[in-house]
């Protein structure tokens, strides 16, 4: 089956053919020119993960307006899902109230699946999460994903402020997942507390992880597993292998479904992409130093910004990143696919300029259409 998706993006600074021009509602000024993404049912499935990064001094509302525009383009470009993360008390990341953001983005789009990547379950009462996602699923049926993680998404004081029980040990997480699934699944005999809405909504759950722990839990429960290779590239292969080896079929999933999240920046040339990549590099560098992590403009060279040890740390953490021209990115994605056989790749792209980010997602959509995926799907 050939899906013809008539979309593409050009910078408003470049003139476009009048007949093919369209402007999205609430557009920030980007103009959209039609080019076809020719994906087939066998093409590599791609999705978006957004941390709603902000520039210094940029209001959250402005950053979210950009994300809404990206979500609309991603929908037209054939991305499967648009996920937003959960972080707290981090100046520069506006993704704290994940379900509210999902509601806002789902309201602005029509068909793309929208979800969390992920809700950090130990920060919340499972009933509250069930009600929030049950509400979203009731309003936008068949479009909502619930990705779950167990990281704090912030520092110790922030966790206390969120009333997360401390110290948290790993043993709590499976029980919380089980409690949550009770509220999202069919009502059980004698069940006293029901999630209204939520009960029997069966919102699809994906477990997120950056280690073997979540891989094993996802395998044991027969759930899809999303590995954060943009955070822990060193554990990717081991976690993927562990997940597949230990997977036990469940009612929701007969065989393993692996999603791999990875940073990608595609641009006109390798040099241009590498330059754009200095924005996320600078941010990670600042995070390592404990400095504010707002988006910074790209620089020609990182040489004068980091010490050797910092450079090694940044490059190590970002070694799964796929950065370059269309050909380079295609090669990188093909390697990722042949090495780990993901059923889906979650593309994490952060740039200083909104246009560069949208352009990168456009390029990746075209590239993914040419790559053979596993042909499997989970929840649409």
């Amino acid at each position, binding site marked *: 089956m050939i899906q013809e998706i008539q979309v593409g993006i050009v910078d408003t600074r470049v003139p476009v053919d009048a007949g093919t021009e369209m402007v999205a509602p609430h557009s920030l000024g980007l103009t959209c020119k039609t080019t076809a993404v020719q994906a087939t049912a066998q093409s590599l499935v791609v999705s978006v993960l957004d941390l709603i990064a902000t520039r210094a001094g940029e209001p*959250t509302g402005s950053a979210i307006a950009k994300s809404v525009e990206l979500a609309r383009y991603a929908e037209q470009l054939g991305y499967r899902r648009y996920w937003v993360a959960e972080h707290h*008390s981090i*100046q520069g990341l506006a993704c704290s109230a994940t379900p509210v953001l999902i509601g806002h983005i789902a309201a602005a789009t029509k068909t793309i699946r929208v979800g969390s990547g992920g809700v950090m379950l130990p920060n919340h009462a499972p009933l509250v999460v069930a009600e929030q996602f049950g509400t979203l699923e*009731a309003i936008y049926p068949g479009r909502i994903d619930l990705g779950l993680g167990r990281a704090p998404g912030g520092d110790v*004081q922030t966790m206390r402020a969120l009333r997360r029980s401390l110290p948290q040990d790993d043993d709590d997480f499976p029980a919380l997942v089980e409690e949550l699934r009770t509220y999202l699944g069919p009502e059980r005999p004698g069940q006293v507390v029901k*999630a209204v809405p939520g009960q029997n909504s069966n919102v699809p759950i994906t477990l997120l992880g950056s280690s073997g722990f979540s891989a094993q839990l996802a395998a044991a429960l027969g759930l899809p597993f999303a590995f954060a290779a943009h955070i822990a590239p060193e554990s990717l292969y081991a976690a993927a292998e562990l997940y597949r080896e230990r997977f036990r079929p469940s009612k929701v999933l007969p065989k393993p479904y692996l999603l791999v999240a990875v940073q990608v920046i595609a641009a006109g040339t390798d040099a241009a992409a590498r330059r754009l990549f200095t924005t996320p590099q600078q941010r990670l560098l600042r995070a390592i130093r404990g400095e504010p992590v707002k988006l910074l403009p790209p620089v020609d060279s990182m040489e004068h910004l980091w010490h050797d040890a910092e450079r090694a740390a940044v490059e190590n953490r970002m070694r799964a990143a796929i950065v370059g021209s269309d050909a380079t990115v295609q090669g990188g994605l093909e390697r990722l696919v042949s090495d780990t056989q993901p059923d889906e790749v979650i593309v994490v792209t952060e740039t200083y300029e909104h246009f560069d980010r949208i352009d990168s997602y456009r390029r990746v959509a075209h590239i993914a259409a040419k790559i053979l995926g596993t042909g499997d799907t989970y929840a649409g």
Partner: protein
Amino acid sequence: MRDDVGGRLRLSILDHTPVSSGSTLGDAFWHSTRLAELAEQVGYERYWVAEHHNMPWLASSSPAVLIAHVAARTRSLRVGSGGVMLTNHAPLAVVEQFGMLEELHPGRIDLGLGRSSGGDQIASHALRRTDQDYAQLLAELLAFFRGEFPEGHPYGSVTAVPGQGTMPNIWLLGSGTYSAQLAGAIGLPFAHAGHFAAANNVSAVAAYRQSFRPSPALQEPYAIVSVGVICAETDEIAERHHHAARVSTVRNLSGTPGPLLSADEIENGPPGEWLLAQEQYVTELFSSHIVGSPSTVKAGLEELAHTGADEIMIATIMHGYTDRLRSYELIADACLPRNSAQVGNTPAGSTRTAGFVEELRNG
């Protein structure tokens, strides 16, 4: 009604997103969306959603998520919570949610806060409800919005992103004099839950006004009193809807909860076995409702204004989405002057409320 509002009734909506028999929760939410659009069209002051848990006839359990949806579907309407039950949540989480909403819809968001559970004891346990003092939780919430924790406070290093510096309008909700006095003492607007505590309407508003001290947020006291209302073309039709709502509520509180039943279902269905205590409680509760034709309801609302309320918030919990929308529409036609000039000739049967759900979903 106070002089400074020129004798005009200010009306607003409290939506519990009631669920009617034979429909889905999704239907209920889309009808709530339509109600919010109506509120914007006809001049209701604000539209608030409630927080209830474990009640299959009330779909509104996640106010912030529902507000995100409704605010995205309207343009100028004030949208808020009536209310978030603060003791069920970490203040930081509430600040992040409503800070986000205020960022997305500047100047349109109300954060109404309450201290009840919004559910039963066991649901409270599942919500990880805290027994922490309400006033302390409120202080913590305000400190996150203002970024003003005292020196050395453990949360001094924690920033609500978003939230700090983007505070919506905060309201305290209450059903007695405690929250009324607290709202007055810190100079916040106050909303009294007359829809279930009508006996305290006058005492709560009086306590609020007496304790009021001006604040940067509010120079003069401002009080809302809510009330249960069912309005229909005639008194008889309205009474019939009200009877159905009353019987459904008794059933729901007697251990066999489900969506609200229609008058036909109740008249033709088998007689239920209700707990006498619940029936007495519900009958008393429902006796404070204003029920009837537009002129009956208008007279009732005008009388309610003598409680000293600046604004009356209407809570309509009944079966049938079209009938419910029609109720709010009739009240607006009768009581909101600007609106009656505009849509006074709308025929009965309401063109505005027909066949809109599919339209909304698709559009």
